[in-house]
């Protein structure tokens, strides 16, 4: 968790220096502004304490499942303008397939199993909480395992 911008190249360089790395998969999430209703900012709220626990667990699961040689997850919080980078996922492994699958796994799980909430602030000053998408739940479900339970 960080309010500050992250340095993709530096984070990647650290992973590349682990011995045996043949490929690094990466995903960067960007604050998207809808043409139909442009936003002035995206606000990201999280649950301090639980966030770190949840991300730690997701990272450990990815490392075990995909035999990763290294893995980095950085998620920003606070107020971000359109075009800003929200989240960075890096997964290093000996071979490309594992690194790219682990990247997809990590971002799918972050979207559905880490306690973050997005709020869009529109140009006219109105704001609304972003709704969770069924498709995100389905994307996460393809990896199996338990899903964040409803009450």
């Amino acid at each position, binding site marked *: 968790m960080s309010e500050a911008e992250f340095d993709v190249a530096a984070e990647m360089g650290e992973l590349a220096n682990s011995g045996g790395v043949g490929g690094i998969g990466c995903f960067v*999430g960007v604050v998207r502004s809808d043409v139909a209703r442009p936003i002035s900012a995206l606000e*990201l*709220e*999280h*649950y301090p*304490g*639980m966030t770190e*626990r949840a991300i730690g667990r997701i990272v450990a699961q990815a490392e075990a499942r995909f035999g990763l040689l290294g893995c980095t997850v950085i*998620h920003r919080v606070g107020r971000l303008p359109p075009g800003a980078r*929200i*989240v960075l996922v890096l997964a290093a492994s000996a071979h490309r397939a594992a690194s790219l699958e682990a990247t997809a796994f990590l*971002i799918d799980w*972050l*979207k*559905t*199993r*880490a*306690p*973050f*909430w*997005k*709020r869009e602030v529109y140009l006219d000053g109105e704001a609304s*909480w*972003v*709704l*969770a998408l069924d498709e*995100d739940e389905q994307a996460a479900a393809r990896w199996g395992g338990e899903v*964040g*339970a*409803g*009450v």
Partner: protein
Amino acid sequence: MTAAPITILYFAWLRERTGCAEERVALPDGVGNVGDLMAWLQARDDGHRSAFANPRLVRAAVNQDFAGPDTAIAPGDEIAFFPPVTGG
């Protein structure tokens, strides 16, 4: 000796509707799990009633692990209520 209170946290629009980010209360009589607590909170005031009006939209955690309505709660626990997560 009094039992430790429970801590209740609210995030996103649940925080907005209850008008509260965090509250501490003594574990009410007859409240043994998350579902019981939600029913009890709903009856507190208009803000809480509005927050829990549609329980299908509410997720919970007990001591920072995702929890369901049957998850037990005890004095000293930290219980959080929030909408489905939208990070990443």
